[in-house]
């Protein structure tokens, strides 16, 4: 099954690249998306295709946290691929361009699946690097001067980051000479035998390296550029899944520290960078002029919140996981919708967009709802995760941090709200209400994602709750329930 996930999309991509047929393109894209979702579902349900050989099982495995991130990715990817259809038609891509796009996006997604499922730190690192390289192509897809600049900065910064992460791996192996393996299972099992100083050192390097990909301050700088210049579905994928998969990398390293009882150290770093991210997004929410960049800063903010959640230890982990899920869905919805706006108004400038609700009510209300989702208005679940993070502050006796937290959050809400309301409200530049009507593939994915969020926010299905709790338990210092290794 893992083989399926890793190999099949690539095969699809190559086929569509070779076939140059629009139908094959669509089948390849949607088929891969469906494959991801189905695999995630089956793994969760414990259904197994034993007759399928799985050669890669040593290197890839669905553990409970990986499954969670994989499922999020699969759903986001499904949404993005449906939306891509409208992207194709709106930009009048020919079959050739479509197939290039599809090949690139499938390679990107496979790389992310590799990051999520890798059982080995070195392998994880390899795939993180692979995500950089594949996504760079996508960011440069529209081949504009500004997207070139964004791509260059993206690759350059992330390459340095990833090089530093490699230093982290080396230092870890220096500290864990007796283990002599970089498989996570070995590292977790023998975490206490790792020389603590080298462990901290390696955490520092790995954190800087992977954190660059996650996009937390102060190493977030590439993020607004890349997110704003990429085609909207790709931005969605970058923000909704790429950041998560790098975040998972940090979580996996964090688990080592937790098992080695060194989390006091890493928690401080996580909290520090988390708050720095909030600060940065608060600063820039107030002065950003481009709505896609605004969404990117919001990603910085949300990643910061996740880091804070993890940094709070046991009490905040569930919130961090919920935040991951909710952020991915709502940010995907936002970025996809921003694609509609971009197409309708032809500008990324906030001040040039007005009267969205009148010009294109569907897009307008989705835009509004997604905004409410991302800033944590109930019934959207970011609200619940924020609640639990505040609760964790109190539980940890760090209530004063809540002041800081809310200060930044309110500033971010103000900045973002100002922009979003400005865009949504008012009179549209053109005559006639509802004069623009996007294709159904341009808003259905968002509606589905938002509906899913509402369900999670009001009455979280047990399935989701269990998934989140297990993922949270995986990171927590409380001995995790035996990792349910499904999907052999």
């Amino acid at each position, binding site marked *: 099954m893992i083989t399926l996930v890793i190999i099949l999309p690539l095969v699809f991509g190559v086929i569509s690249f070779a076939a140059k047929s629009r139908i094959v393109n669509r089948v390849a894209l949607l088929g891969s998306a469906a494959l991801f979702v189905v695999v995630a579902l089956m793994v969760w349900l414990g259904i197994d295709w034993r007759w399928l050989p799985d050669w890669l099982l040593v290197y890839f495995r669905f553990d409970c946290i990986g499954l969670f991130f994989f499922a999020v990715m699969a759903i986001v990817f499904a949404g993005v691929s449906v939306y891509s259809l409208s992207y194709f038609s709106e930009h009048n891509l020919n079959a050739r361009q479509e197939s290039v796009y599809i090949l690139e996006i499938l390679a990107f997604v496979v790389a992310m699946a590799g990051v999520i499922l890798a059982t080995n730190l070195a392998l994880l690192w*390899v795939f993180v*690097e692979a995500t950089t*390289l594949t996504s760079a192509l996508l960011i440069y897809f529209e081949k504009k001067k*500004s997207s070139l600049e964004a791509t260059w900065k993206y690759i350059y910064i992330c390459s340095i980051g990833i090089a530093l992460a*490699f230093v982290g791996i080396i230092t870890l192996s220096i500290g864990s000479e007796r283990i002599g393996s970089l498989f996570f299972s070995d590292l977790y099992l023998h975490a206490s035998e790792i020389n603590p100083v080298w462990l901290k050192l390696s955490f520092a390097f790995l954190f800087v390296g992977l954190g660059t990909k996650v996009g937390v301050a102060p190493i977030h700088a590439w993020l607004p550029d890349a997110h704003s210049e990429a085609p909207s579905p790709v931005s969605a994928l970058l923000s909704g899944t790429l950041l998560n998969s790098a975040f998972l990398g940090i979580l996996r390293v964090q688990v080592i520290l937790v098992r080695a009882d060194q989390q006091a150290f890493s928690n401080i770093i996580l909290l520090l960078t988390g708050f720095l991210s909030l600060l940065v997004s608060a600063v820039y929410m107030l002065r950003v002029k481009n709505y896609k960049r605004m969404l990117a800063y919001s990603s910085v903010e949300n990643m910061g919140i996740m880091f804070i959640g993890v940094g709070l230890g046991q009490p905040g982990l569930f919130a961090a996981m919920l935040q991951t899920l909710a952020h991915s869905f709502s940010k995907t919805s936002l970025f996809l919708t921003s694609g509609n706006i971009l197409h309708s108004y032809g500008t990324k400038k906030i001040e040039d967009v007005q009267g969205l609700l009148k010009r294109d009510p569907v897009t307008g209300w989705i835009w509004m709802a997604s905004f409410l989702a991302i800033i944590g208005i109930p019934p959207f679940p970011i609200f619940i995760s924020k609640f639990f993070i505040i609760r964790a502050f109190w539980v940890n006796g760090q209530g004063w941090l809540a002041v800081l937290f809310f200060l930044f959050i309110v500033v971010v809400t103000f900045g973002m709200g100002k922009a979003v309301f400005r865009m949504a409200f008012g009179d549209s530049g053109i005559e006639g209400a509802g004069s623009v009507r996007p294709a159904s593939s341009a808003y259905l994915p968002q509606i589905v994602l938002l509906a899913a969020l509402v369900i999670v926010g009001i009455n979280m299905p047990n399935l989701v709750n269990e998934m989140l709790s297990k993922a949270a338990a995986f990171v927590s210092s409380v001995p995790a329930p035996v990792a349910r290794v499904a999907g052999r």
Partner: protein
Amino acid sequence: MTDILIILLGTTMLYVSSVSRIEAYVKTLAAQGFLLFLLVMVGVKEMSWLNIAFLVFETLIVKTVVIPYFLLTVIRRNETPREIEPYISQFYSLLIASGIFVFGFVAAFWAARTGGNIKPLYFGISIAIMMLSLFLIVNRKRIITHILCYMMLENGIFLLSLSVANELPMLVNIGVLLDLFVAIYLFAIFFNKINEIYDGSHVDVLTELKD
């Protein structure tokens, strides 16, 4: 023997932080590649011949010959300005570089006291090389120096990975492979697009995206 080679490697970084011609950077890069080759020859034992052959290929062929040659041709062909303009003057930059170099020795000393299967000097100097490369990246104004210094950063990491090469050869190989890949990638973008679209390759042309 290895110690001398390592320190030599470190000194090359001091050299580049004081020179101002791009060719000198490229030549230093080649020199570093050769030094690394020597280190591989001297330092690595207990490895399969395949691994060793791979490392030799990497250091001697790629790092010492191919990349520098390629860079030199490109520089000459494109007639990019030969001078490297630093933000900080050469003198101060050398001063800071020396400071970082000393920090490398401190790190080596610290590593020796901390334990772990580490050859202290490998650790210290590679840290110093990495820091120095990052410092040079920050301090230089030409985009091509970003690539050059990135290669130096990779050399530093390669040096560090050599210290565990005996235990985890796979790791070294992966690192090397990816380095190559990234380097090629960066080159490709740089020479195909950036140089084409942004004439002059001054870093300031890449500041359109900001808030």
